[in-house]
C-alpha cells in the first residue's frame, strides 16, 4: 500500500512539474516530435524520388513514410536522456541527499516521475501521428495499438534500468554526461530510430532485432505499420524481460558500490 502511495505521489510530482512550464511542455510534447517527423519524412520522400524506385527492401514509399512519422512520436516516449541527466545531476550536485534520508528509493522515485512525465506528454503528442495517418491514409493497423504501446511501456522499465546504471557512475566520477550522449547515439541505431532495422544485412539484422533495444522503436512501430509480425513482437517482450533481469542485477551492484563511496556532496 505504502509502495503505491509514495510512487503515485512521485508520478503526480512529474505531472505537476511539467505542467508548471507551459511553453516548455508544448515544445517538448508537440513541436519537437513534429520537427523530427518532418525531417525523417522528407528524407525518405527525397530518397524514393532521387532513386526513382517504388520499393526499397520490399516496402513501398508509404510504408517508410508511416514508419518515419510514427518513429518520431514513439521515440518521444522511448527515450530517457532527460531523466538520465537528472539522475546524474542529482548525484553530482547532492540533490540526491533529500531522497536518501527519506523512506523512498532513488530508483523508484525517478521511475515514477519518468512514467508520470511520459503519460502527460504521450497522451497529447500521439494524437498528431494518429490524425496525420488518418488524413493521408498511411499503412497502419489501429487494432495493434494496445499491444505495441504495451511493449513500449514495458521497454521503459528496461530503459530506466540502463539509465540508472549510467547514473551510478556519477558516485565515482565528476562529469559523466558524455556517457549519456554516447549511449543515446548507440540507441539511435540499435532501437531503429535512424532507419528500419530490417534494412540491415544478415546476421546483423537478426542479432540487433533480438536485442531488447529494438522494443523501444523498431518492433512497436514496425508492428503498427506492417513490417513486423505478431511473433516477432512477442519476442520483443521476451528479450526485454531478459534485459530487465540483467540490468537489474548490474544496477544493484553498482548502486551498493556507489553509495559506499558517496561523500554526500554539497551539504
Amino acid at each position, binding site marked *: 500500500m505504502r509502495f503505491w502511495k*509514495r510512487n503515485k505521489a512521485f508520478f503526480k510530482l512529474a505531472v505537476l512539474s511539467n505542467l508548471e512550464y507551459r511553453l516548455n511542455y508544448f515544445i517538448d510534447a508537440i513541436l519537437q516530435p513534429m520537427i523530427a517527423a518532418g525531417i525523417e519524412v522528407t528524407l525518405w520522400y527525397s530518397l524514393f524520388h532521387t532513386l526513382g524506385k517504388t520499393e526499397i527492401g520490399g516496402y513501398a514509399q508509404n510504408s517508410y513514410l508511416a514508419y518515419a512519422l510514427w518513429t518520431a512520436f514513439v521515440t518521444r516516449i522511448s527515450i530517457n536522456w532527460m531523466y538520465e541527466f537528472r539522475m546524474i545531476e542529482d548525484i553530482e550536485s547532492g540533490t540526491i541527499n533529500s531522497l536518501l534520508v527519506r523512506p523512498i528509493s532513488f530508483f523508484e522515485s525517478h521511475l515514477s516521475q519518468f512514467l508520470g512525465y511520459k503519460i502527460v506528454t504521450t497522451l497529447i503528442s500521439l494524437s498528431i501521428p494518429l490524425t496525420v495517418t488518418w488524413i493521408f491514409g498511411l499503412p497502419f493497423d489501429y487494432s495493434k495499438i494496445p499491444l505495441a504501446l504495451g511493449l513500449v511501456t514495458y521497454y521503459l522499465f528496461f530503459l530506466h534500468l540502463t539509465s540508472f546504471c549510467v547514473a551510478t557512475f556519477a558516485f565515482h566520477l565528476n562529469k559523466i554526461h558524455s556517457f549519456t550522449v554516447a549511449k543515446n547515439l548507440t540507441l539511435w541505431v540499435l532501437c531503429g530510430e535512424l532507419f528500419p532495422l530490417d534494412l540491415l544485412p544478415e546476421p546483423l539484422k537478426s542479432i540487433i532485432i533480438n536485442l531488447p533495444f529494438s522494443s523501444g522503436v523498431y518492433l512497436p512501430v514496425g508492428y503498427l505499420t506492417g513490417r513486423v509480425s505478431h511473433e516477432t513482437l512477442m519476442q520483443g517482450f521476451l528479450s526485454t524481460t531478459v534485459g530487465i533481469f540483467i540490468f537489474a542485477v548490474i544496477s544493484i551492484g553498482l548502486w551498493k558500490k556507489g553509495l559506499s563511496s558517496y561523500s554526500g556532496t554539497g551539504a
Partner: protein
Amino acid sequence: MQTANANKSELVIETKGLSRVYKTYKKKEGILESIKGFWDRQYEEKVALAPTDLQIAGGQIVGLVGANGAGKTTLLKMLSGLIHPSSGTAQVLGYTPWERKHDYLRQMSILLGQKNQLWWDISPMDSYLLLADIYDIDKATAIKRIHHLAEILKAEHVLQTQLRRLSLGERMKMEIIGALLHEPKVLFLDEPTIGLDIVAQTSIRQFLAEYAKEKKPTIILTSHYMDDIAKLSDRLLLISKGKMVYDGTVKDFTKKSRTYQKISFSLSEPLDKDLHIASQNLTKGTQEISIQISNEELQIALTQITQISGVQNLKIEEADFEDSIHAFLEAQ
C-alpha cells in the same frame, strides 16, 4: 576530553570508533598538469572525522560546534545514513543509519541549511502533500500540522508560492516545516539559520525552542551562530580537526568561560616588531588588537600593555560564549 555520557538505558544515539576518511584528487595548476592528470593522478586522504565515541540520550539537544571542515557535517551525514563510515559503528534508535531502513528513515529528519530538500519547481504545499504520501501521513493530519507549523513560523502566506520564488528566509522556514512534518524522534539540524537576517534567525530559534519543548525530540544542532547553540542546547560538543575536544553541558562551559577576560585596544601606529602579552603572541604590523587571557594572567598582561606606546581605547570585558568557544578551539 571532558565527557557528559548519557545513561545507557535511554540512549538514542551511540557511536563507537566512528570515523570517515575522504579521498580527494590533488591537481596542480596549468594545462600541462591537466594533461598529465590523464594517466598520473595524485590522491590524498583527509580525515574528516577521527574515531569518535558518542552517547546521546533521548530528548537531549546537543550543540555541535567547530570550525569549517572540523567534521560536524560529516558526523551528521553518517548518523542520518547519507554516507557510510570508513570505520566504526553507529546506532540511532537501534538502527544502523547507513542501512537506510525505511522504519528508521520514518523516525528521523535532517535539515541541511545549505541545501534545498523540497522540490524547486512546485509550491511548498504540493511538496508537503508529497511528503505526507512518502511518510504515510493521512492528508487531513498533514494539512493540520502544516498550518500549525506555518502559523508559528508566520509563513502561511507563502505556502502556495513556487519554492524557487521565495526568499532565503522564507525558504528555510518551508524547509523546517518539511523536516518536521512527520514529527521525527531524532532531528539533525545542520546550520538551520545560515545566511539569514537577525529577525529570521531569532524567529527560527524561538520556533525550534518551542518545538523541542513540545515534542521532545533528540536533536543534534550545528551552527556558526553561537546564540543558536547557547539558547537551544543543553549539551555542547566541540569538534576540532575531526576530533571531539569537549563534551559537556553548556552551563559548565559557560562557567568555565568566565575565567577568561577579553582585552581589546588599538595602537596609534602598527607594531614594529612581534610582541608577547602574557601567553599571547602579537605579530608585527598589527594595529587593532583583541586577545583573550585567563584571570591569572590579567595583571601581568595589563602591565605589559601599559609599556607599549600609543595604546588607545583599552577595554577589558568578560569573554562571552562565542569568544570562549573560539579561544578553546584555537588552543586545540
